């Protein structure tokens, strides 16, 4: 019984179906419960959260990643699956402590002061959440002091900064300086992204990594995780 739900969960992640109303990659699952309903009933059946995550959500996401790499899936497919997993994680959050599972880490993401571009930032947020990170999105045009404050309070392991304007990317350097001044720089890894920045720019302002897109972010984060272990 529990195996069946987990298998369905995995299949629905692959198909990127959040709810019973969603269409998948094909019609095979149309009209059947999606990831959110299945996650709910898995909890009700007493299946431990770690099992739901490992064998259902993560296992499904693994296959989605493979399909994307093989060009069988496009970005919208990947995002649909990631969003479903991200929302399922919200449902599972209260049960995680009980089953002693840790998320992959806290990721704070923000578009810097003066910049309102957020499409890319939002996509990165969805992908990271789907990859198992606990994502805290501070929004757009956020003042440096607020960001520093949030880092102090929330203690994320990673801080993602987005800037698409050459006039706003300088704020990224200011944020790093402010983190230093507040004794927080060594507590958080800073990742930057957006068309205005580059690897060179990351070096210039002393960020830990530049990410071309959300997928690269996942890879770089994985490398950080591996280095930690």
């Amino acid at each position, binding site marked *: 019984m529990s195996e069946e739900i987990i298998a369905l969960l995995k299949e629905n992640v692959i198909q990127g179906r959040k709810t019973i109303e969603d269409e998948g*990659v094909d019609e095979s699952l149309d009209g059947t419960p999606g990831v959110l309903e299945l996650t709910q009933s898995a909890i009700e059946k007493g299946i431990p959260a770690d099992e739901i995550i490992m064998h259902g959500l993560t296992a499904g996401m693994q296959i989605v990643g493979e399909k994307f790499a093989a060009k069988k899936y496009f970005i919208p497919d990947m*995002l649909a699956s990631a969003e479903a997993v991200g929302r399922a994680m919200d449902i599972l959050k209260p049960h995680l402590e009980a089953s002693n599972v840790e998320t992959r880490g806290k990721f704070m993401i923000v578009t810097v002061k003066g910049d309102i571009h957020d499409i890319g930032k939002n*996509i990165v947020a*969805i992908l990271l959440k789907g990859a198992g990170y606990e994502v805290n999105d501070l929004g757009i045009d956020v003042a440096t002091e607020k960001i520093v404050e949030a880092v102090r309070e929330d203690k994320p392991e990673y801080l993602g900064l987005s800037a698409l304007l050459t006039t706003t990317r300088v704020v990224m350097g200011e944020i790093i300086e402010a983190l230093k001044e507040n004794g927080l720089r060594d507590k958080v890894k800073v990742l930057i992204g957006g068309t205005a920045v580059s690897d060179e720019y990351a070096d210039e302002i002393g960020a830990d990594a530049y990410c071309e897109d959300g997928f690269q972010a996942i890879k770089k984060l994985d490398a950080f995780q591996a280095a930690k272990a």
Partner: protein
Amino acid sequence: MPREGILVHNPYERMTKEQVRQIHHASMQILTDPGLISFNRRAAEIFASNGAEVTPVSSGDHPTWLVKIPEKLVLHALDSAPRIVKLGARNPDNALIMNGEEPRVYFVTGSETNIWLDVEFPTYVKKSDPKIEIQVPEFHPRRGTVADLCQSAHVCEHLETLDGYIRTVNIQDKDITEDNKDVNKFFASLNNTTKHVMSGLTSLSQLDNVVNMARIIAGGEEELKQNPIISFITCLVKSPLQFVEDTTDTFMEVCKRGLPVVVSSSPQAGTTAPMKEAGIMAQINAEVLAGITLGQLVNKGTPVLYGSVPVRARMDNLDDSYGAVETSQYNVDCSQMARYYKIPNYSTSGVCDPRTPGTQSSVERLFSDILVTLSGPQYLHCAYGLLECNSVFCLTQAVLDDAHFQMIKFFLRPARIDETEIAESLKQIREVVATPQKLYISYIRRAMRSRQISPPYPFEGDGEGDNVFALAHKRMQELLAKPVDHIDRATTARIFEEILGLLRRQVDGLKTEG
């Protein structure tokens, strides 16, 4: 179920209703003054016995007659010419049903080029930095062969947008003569595609052999009538205003047999037709109507297509210029005239002036393909692979052309705006605006899966360079490797028994493939 082609909902027209009437009246005047010169005795006689004013002009080796066709005769013919013409196909699902009143476009190859273009991709090394190598397409022209014609039909069978096949290349093998050319070109085409096959005839003596072959393939006389898997193009009128001796004979014989035939006229503005739009339009329309009238007099009700291949002259050498903007204008006008007469239109686009594929060829062909398609001709020929004004055919170019016809067809899909769509959209907008990310991305997929999103350009490379030709060439080779439904063995055997002149190697190839 016939092929769908693409229905153009609001066909683009250049002329006002009044201008159409003016062209019609000018053409009617042309048909009586100056009238047409006929080099064909039978045609002159048929016109004379039906009330046209026919007077001998010269005698001797090439006797000619002046034929003045009264409007009444033309209107009568327009009345009896069918509005709906069916072009059958070996696979009945590939049949084309053309309605002179409905601007549904079918995309077809053409013409009969002498030159076949091979493509190669040699590697070039950068002089200043020999580590850098690139592959550059190189084009090698040579005379076309039966094998080329088979290859081209084979690939065209697999081109999604291509609705019918006009033999693309002139077969010039050593063992091809005037007497076996027609049977071999029709067999090469019919055996390698299940789509409709249209061609001109080289020798009238071969007409019955070709028709018999089609009869065997279609399954009998009546079957061929119901499903005319072949049809013919004849340029019976040479511009300006002359019935040619031999092609007019061919035309009349095809009409007698009741098979569909294109009455095609190809005046060149500047040389064989007036330079200006009003002039070339009045003349080409008169020429085509004269042909249609003759066809109906020979066999009332025989299916004909209004064939227009008007071009403008190049100013430097007076060659045809298919790339000239005016050429598209004339074609669009002709499509409007044919619709006025409710006769399916055989029109032209895609041909370009340069000899090899490249930037100029892409610009010119796409320009005319879009504009002429928008005018809604029923049968758009010459649209694949043709270069240098119909004298060169390149199969890789045909594959490229298929890609842009997919774009054109997608563009012409009717707007999907109705109550349901609006309701669904409002729901989506409200849902998304309420989320933190405010992104519609999760709805993309649904549209994508139901093919509501146009596919990416299929020959876009991974790197920065333009790799279009190499990718299209690869695609062409893939299509060539895909099998096609040849004529079955028993029928083939019968054809070889009954039809003389077929080259054995046409089916030896089949053996190695099978």
